[in-house]
C-alpha cells in the first residue's frame, strides 16, 4: 500500500477479524424506526447535542441499507408483524437495539390489550437499553455496547465449521 511507503514508520499490526470488525462497527447505519416516545429521544440523540454521527452511526431511511435497527418505542400487535417483515429485509449481518422499557418488556403498557410485551418475542435483540424513555446518553451507551459486542465477532470461519475449531487452527 502506498500509504506505508510514504510513512515507513507507520505500521499497524492487527488481526484481520479485528480490522473487519473495526471497519464495520465504525459505520453502523441505523434504520429510522421510531415507533413512539423513544423516537423523539432517538431524534435528539442524532441531533446536534448528542450527535450519534461521532460513532459512525447515521440514519438510513430504508431497511435495505441498514445494519442496525433501533426499536424506539412501544410495539403494538398490529405493528409487530410489520416489524418482522422489516427485519427480514435488512441484509446480514444485522443488529437490533431495543430502546426503552416498552420494547424491552412492554413497560408501562404491559396492562394493555394491544401491545406486544417485548420486541424479543418477534425478533432477536442484541442490546437492551432501559429507560422510559432512555436519555440520549443511554442510547449512546447502548450503541457503544453494541460496538463492543461487534468487536468480539469472528469472521474467518468456514461455513458450517465450529468457531472453536477455527480458533485452534
Amino acid at each position, binding site marked *: 500500500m502506498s500509504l506505508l511507503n510514504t510513512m515507513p514508520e507507520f505500521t499497524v499490526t492487527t488481526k484481520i477479524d479485528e480490522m473487519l470488525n473495526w471497519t464495520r462497527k465504525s459505520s453502523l447505519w441505523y434504520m*429510522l*424506526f*421510531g*415507533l*413512539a*416516545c423513544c*423516537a*423523539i*429521544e432517538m*431524534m*435528539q440523540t442524532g*441531533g*446536534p*447535542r448528542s450527535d450519534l454521527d461521532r460513532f459512525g452511526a447515521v*440514519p438510513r*431511511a430504508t*431497511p435495505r441499507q441498514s445494519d442496525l435497527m433501533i426499536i424506539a*418505542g*412501544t410495539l*403494538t400487535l*398490529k*405493528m409487530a408483524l*410489520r416489524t418482522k417483515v*422489516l427485519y427480514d429485509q435488512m441484509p446480514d449481518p444485522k443488529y437490533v437495539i431495543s430502546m426503552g422499557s416498552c420494547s424491552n418488556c412492554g413497560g*408501562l*403498557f404491559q*396492562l*394493555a*390489550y*394491544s*401491545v406486544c410485551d417485548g420486541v424479543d418475542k418477534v425478533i432477536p435483540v442484541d442490546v437492551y437499553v432501559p429507560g*422510559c*424513555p432512555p*436519555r440520549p446518553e443511554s442510547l449512546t451507551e447502548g450503541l457503544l455496547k453494541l460496538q463492543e459486542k461487534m468487536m468480539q465477532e469472528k469472521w474467518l470461519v468456514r461455513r458450517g465449521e465450529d468457531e472453536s475449531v477455527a480458533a485452534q487452527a
Partner: protein
Amino acid sequence: MSLGGYDVEVQRPGGLATEEMTLNMGPQHPSTHGVLRFIVKADGEVMREAIPDVGYLHRSIEKIAEKVGYHGFMPYTDRVDYVAAMPCNQGWGMVCEKLAGIEVPRRAEYCRVIAVELNRIASHLLSVGSMGMDIGAYTPFTHALREREYINDLLEELCGARLTFNYMRIGGVAWDLPPDWVPKAVAFLDRFEPLIDEYNALISYNKIYVERLANVAVISAAEAIDYNLVGPNLRGSGVKYDVRKDMPYSVYPEFEFDVPIGTGEVGTVGDCFDRYIVRIREMNQSCRILRQALAGVPEGPVLTKVPRKFKPPVGDAYIRLESARGDMGWYCVSDGSEYPYRVKIRTGSFTATSIIDKVSRGVMLADLIAIVASFDLVAPEIDR
C-alpha cells in the same frame, strides 16, 4: 385542469390505456411522524386518494385508565402526546378536579402555565424542524433541536424528566419551581426570541419553502370546522379560536397574548404555509405569556391535599384545553369508585388525520408529506 392549486395537464395519448396505481406508504416510513400508513392511489404523479390507515400505535391507554386509578393514570397521560406531555398532564388534572370540585392553588396554576407554555414551544420547534426535514431541508431540523434541548434542560430541572414529565398531580403540581430556575428560564427566552426571526429568515420565507407549501391542501374555515380541526390547523384556516381565550381556564385570563391566524400571505388562506406560520407566531405568543407568568409567580403552596384513595362523586365531566395540537378534550365518567369508569381523550391529531383523505385528492404525490407535516401529526395522539 386545476388540481390542488397546480395546473396539471393529464396526458392521455390516444389508445394508450393508463391505470391507477395503488401504493403503500408506511407504516414504517421516514417521514410519516411515527407509525402512520397511507394507501395511496396515484395516477402518475397525481394522487387520486390517500387513505390513512391508523392504529399502529394503539396502546389502549383509555382501557388502562380503568385499571390503574386516578393518580396512577398520570404517567400514562404523558404518553398520549409525548411531544407535548404537559398539556396532557394538565388535562387529566383538570378533568379530575372538575369531577371532584377541587380548587388548585394559584402558584400551582402558574407552575402549570409555565410548564405548558415551555412545552408548547418545544413541541412547535419539533414540528417546524421536522417540517423542514420532510420537505427536504435537514439544517432547520438541527437548529430546532438545538433550542429544544435547552427547553428540555429547563423542564428536566423542573421535574426530572426530559420528555415524559409526570409533573402535575390532581390538585396541583408535584414540585415547586427550583431555586434560581426563573432567571434561567428568562435567560432562555432572551436567547430564544431573536432566534424565531432567524428561523423566519432561514426557512419560513425561503423561496423553495414557500413554493412547496403555499396553495397546497387549502382547507376553508367551514370545512375545517366540519372536520373538527383544532388548534393551529384550525387557526391556519382563518378561524380565530383559541381555548385559552374563548373558554378560559387556569390563569390564562390574566395574561395578554394574541391569537395568530392564517392570512394567506403567500397563497390562499388555509394552505400548508398558513398552518406552518401560525406555529411560528404561536411561539412568539408563548414567549409573551411566559414572560408575564415568570414575572408574577405568586407565593403559596403548589399542591392541595387530595386523598390517596381519590374517589370523585358519581358523574361525568368534560373539559377542553389548548394543547400544542389544539383543543384537547378529556371526558371522564366516574362511578364513585377508586377507578375511572371510562376515560376518553379527544385529540387534535385524530380529527386532523381524517381530513387527509379529502384534501389529498388531486395533489402531487410529493405534497402528501408536506400535508402530513403541516398538520403536525403525532401518532400516539391519533391512536392513543
